[in-house]
């Protein structure tokens, strides 16, 4: 299953060569990576962060500031800055997490929003960020038709990295500790889980991929503005994707990112009217949450389990019916 999906994703840009669609694919992959990484902390621990744009923005600004101040030639060499941007995001995540994780879940949500606005105002008003005029990155002299390809494969690599990391965490002792916090934090604490350290580690780890994605996005766009990389809708979108796919599952955020970002971009393309798009997006979003509160993965597996249970009950009550229809 997983390898088949990977093969499809690897050959996709070789078959669909229209730059409009490959550009959508790049941003979809970036969101899949971000959501998977977000879910690695928020989904497993139950602490819903609405401040992930802090890390996205820090990553984007690292890329923009370093590559423009070092007068780098635009091109493949810039990709070396991507892991650096991830590290910067992690360094930022330590104090942010230390402050926000002092409180429990609901207040945590609001504090991450508040901290996000601190960073956004800083980016708009600080002198080194170029203010609201933004920063231009070095121009990348690639041919228009092939411009998206390197970004696509870098983004795909990040999706694979985030998924492997998330799966690794899930199987580890550390992941179990995160899940224990989600189920009952006080009990986890009582059982000897160092909850503060575990939460802070998870929070910091999840910042890495999000920072890298911000850096790739900055490079891809070529010009960044504080409002677009420190974007409140980014915070919400990432959380929404995870909830849509399946909060706390491995496959869920990938599916959510794929479905939501691709359909969102398609809706933007087909409805030039932004307001109608907002309404449609809101309705879609509402329907999914109300009718699939556990997300696609949770909903489907529940349906599957119910079906299996029904069959079992049928076979228990009426053995001949099963025998007649093997």
């Amino acid at each position, binding site marked *: 299953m997983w390898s088949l999906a990977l093969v499809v994703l690897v050959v996709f840009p070789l078959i669909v060569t229209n730059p409009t669609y490959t550009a959508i694919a790049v941003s979809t992959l970036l969101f899949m990576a971000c959501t998977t990484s977000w879910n690695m902390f928020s989904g497993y621990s139950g602490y819903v962060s609405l401040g992930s744009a802090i890390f996205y923005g820090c990553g984007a600004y690292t890329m923009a500031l370093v590559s423009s101040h070092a007068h780098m030639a635009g091109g493949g060499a810039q990709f070396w800055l991507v892991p650096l941007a991830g590290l910067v995001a992690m360094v930022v995540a330590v104090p942010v997490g230390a402050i926000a994780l002092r409180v429990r*879940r609901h207040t945590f*949500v*609001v*504090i991450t929003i*508040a*901290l996000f606005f601190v960073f956004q105002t800083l980016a708009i008003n600080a002198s080194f960020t170029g203010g609201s005029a933004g920063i231009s990155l070095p121009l990348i002299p690639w041919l228009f038709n092939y411009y998206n390809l390197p970004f696509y494969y870098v983004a795909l690599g990040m999706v694979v990295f985030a998924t492997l990391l998330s799966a690794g965490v899930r199987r580890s002792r550390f992941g179990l500790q995160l899940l224990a916090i989600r189920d009952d934090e006080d009990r986890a604490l009582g059982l000897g889980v160092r909850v503060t350290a575990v939460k802070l580690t998870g929070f910091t780890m999840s910042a890495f991929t999000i920072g890298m994605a911000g850096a790739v996005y900055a490079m891809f766009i070529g010009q960044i503005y504080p409002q677009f990389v420190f974007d409140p809708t980014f915070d919400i979108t990432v*959380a929404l994707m995870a909830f849509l796919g399946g909060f706390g599952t491995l496959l869920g955020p990938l599916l959510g990112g794929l479905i939501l970002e691709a359909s969102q971009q398609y809706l933007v393309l087909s409805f030039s009217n932004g307001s109608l798009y907002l309404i449609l997006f809101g309705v879609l979003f*509402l329907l999914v949450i109300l009718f699939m509160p556990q997300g696609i993965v949770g909903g489907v597996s529940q349906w599957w389990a119910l079906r299996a249970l029904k069959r079992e009950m049928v076979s228990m009550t009426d053995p001949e019916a099963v025998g007649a229809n093997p």
Partner: protein
Amino acid sequence: MNSSALIHALLDGVLTGSVYALMATGLTLIFGVMNIINIAQGILVILGAYLSYTLSVHFGIDLFAGLVITIPTLFVVGIVVERFFMTKLKGPERTSMSILVTYAIALIIEGALNMIYSINDVQLKAWYVNQSFRVFGLWIPYIYMFGFFLAVALLGALYVMLYRTRFGASIRASLADQTAAALIGINVKRVSTICFGLGVAVTAAGGMVYGATNAFNASTSYDLISRLLTIIVLGGMGSLGGALLAAILMVTLGDVIAVVWSPIWSTPTYFFVLVIVLSLRPQGLVGKLSVREA
């Protein structure tokens, strides 16, 4: 900097802060009783402002008189939202889900408002918006004073309702402990619905004053909701007195910083203070620390 500017900032802080307190009280009431974070509160304030705008521009109804229509309208909006959407939320992730659901509702209302009123800024107009009176050698527009009186009157009514009536007692019981309230025969479901309606209804008054003192469009709601959320967190989630205190603190602090330092830094300073306060008192200024928080 001079002292009259400082007095002006303090005065403005109290006058405007009371209006924010009114809007935040609705939010904290909803959270306290239902454990629901209503992200749509910001856009509902804007909806209230647009309703007042329509009534005054198209029907020539005075802004304050129009509240007789807009407050019940938003009360009904709140009831409908609660009945159709909030009752559907169940399970351990209920509060997180409520953020997403109310955000979706906010997006739908934002889209609709953009289509109806366009994205150009508008501001409510009336004689008391343009004219000022003199106090302590300062010119204050009448609307600030009227808005303050309105907010104080409505907050007062809310407090009387909460602390002097039987229904208020059942709301406070539900605030304290839903299960225990249900056990002594309080219809918690009905209380929740009415609380949601009340929490939304106050946005009509808040929106009218906000719309008369600021130019607004639908996207102004993002700024509003982030402020309202931080107010209720700073005050202590679910605490009515905390919301009042935090709202006045937020606006006064912002105004004072704008005077003594620079308007650019007033918002970051507020958020910075919020972070400091919460590092020392995670439960907020007035909030209680619950023993087992799910």
